[in-house]
């Protein structure tokens, strides 16, 4: 009887459409974020994340509409991130129906944005997304920008400590080295962040084998985010949950559906 490990699916959305290929046959429209969200809900996902990768402002407006339609149909927590730059951006997404908003580059540029958002909406709405990789910094991990291509010249562990002090409610840790490899989460990075973060920690990047999920939890993650292994049907949500449950982790298994 403890808090369950959360399994989170991330959908990349641009101009109102899901970007990555989806290997589910029982969808009428696999590109529709609302339908994808609804399917994942039926499959037993614990939480959903939309990452808005739209380049244009009209694309962003479309995303707000997608959030609105999703929140009206899917009754599980929804986080939205990507291009969030101001308190007003957060306000717009929350009003549309997002439960949490994640920030990344804008907080690196201006850390006070964290406290501005927290002061207005509370810590529980704010997820700090950290794109980190191994590097020769004090901790051995640095923050990157531009999808991991450029160094932000900030030590990742120092950044997490600072953001926690400013009031973020949760950390989404993306390993840019592991991302897309399906070779496992970066366990050392998860442990290093866990050691300094007293808020919930979501591990992201590298999920492949079922044992990878367990390893990330053992390293201190509270929640596990995955994209391609779910989208491409490599694992069903139920496979991951059955595996973790058999391994002794606390898992939500909704029976009432």
């Amino acid at each position, binding site marked *: 009887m403890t808090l369950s490990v959360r399994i989170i699916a991330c959908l990349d959305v641009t101009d109102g459409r899901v970007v990555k290929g989806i290997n589910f046959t029982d969808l009428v429209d696999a590109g529709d974020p609302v339908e994808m969200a609804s399917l994942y809900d039926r499959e037993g996902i614990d*939480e959903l994340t939309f990452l808005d990768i739209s380049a244009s402002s009209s694309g962003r407006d479309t995303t707000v509409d997608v959030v609105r339609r999703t929140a009206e149909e899917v*009754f599980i927590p929804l986080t939205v991130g990507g291009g969030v730059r101001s308190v007003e951006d957060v306000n717009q997404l929350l*009003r549309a*129906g997002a*439960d949490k908003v994640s920030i990344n580059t804008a907080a690196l540029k201006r850390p006070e944005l964290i406290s501005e958002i927290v002061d207005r909406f*509370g810590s529980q709405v704010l997820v700090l997304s950290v794109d980190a990789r191994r590097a020769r910094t004090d901790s051995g991990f640095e923050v990157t920008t531009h999808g991991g291509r450029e160094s932000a010249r900030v030590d990742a562990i120092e950044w997490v400590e600072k953001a926690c002090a400013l009031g973020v409610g949760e950390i989404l840790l993306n390993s840019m080295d592991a991302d897309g490899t399906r070779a496992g989460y970066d366990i050392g990075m998860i442990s290093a962040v866990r050691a300094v973060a007293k808020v*919930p920690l979501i591990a992201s990047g590298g999920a492949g084998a079922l044992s990878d999920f367990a390893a990330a939890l053992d390293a201190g993650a509270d929640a596990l985010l995955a994209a391609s292994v779910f989208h491409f049907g490599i694992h069903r949500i139920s496979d991951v949950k059955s595996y973790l449950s058999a391994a002794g982790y606390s898992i939500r298994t909704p029976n009432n559906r």
Partner: protein
Amino acid sequence: MIAILDYGSGNLRSAQRAFATTGHDVELTSDLDVALKADGLVVPGVGAFAACMNGINEISAADVIRQRKIAGKATLGICIGMQILFSDGLEHGAHKGIGMWSGTVSELDAPILPHMGWNTVEITGSSRLFKGIEKESFYFVHSYAAKSSVGLAQAWTTHGEKFLSAVEDGPLCATQFHPEKSGQAGLTLIANWSAGL
């Protein structure tokens, strides 16, 4: 008709849709007359304890909640909307709540806060809200909670320490978790609540 008390919260859209799945008309309102006369009233949470009480006080809604209890009309507090039904809260300093129940809402003694995610409940007393969903998980997001028993039936959850995750006290009910974000189990709880309207 179910009224959802709108006192400054940004997002009530999910709550409105979740309660509408019961087949009842659902109205967002800050009109005290509407809130008083509704068959069911939902008090959602807004921000921290003190901010939430400020919102309640700005529209003078505490009296509506008291009058509904006396009249036997159903009211459901959610998250901070549950916490402010207690007499005292310790978030960002000591603050007075509406005081429907005697007790203090204090920080959870847990290594990781907020308590964020899906957790189970343990029920004491005869519960109507949890009928058929006693073994399900519900979605929590909070760092503070009430820890002493009030009301006629209770649900308890553990995160670091045991706390009160729901109360049923005749017409006045409350949940620390978010039924509107707890998937099918949450919708069933909402249906159980509204079946009494």
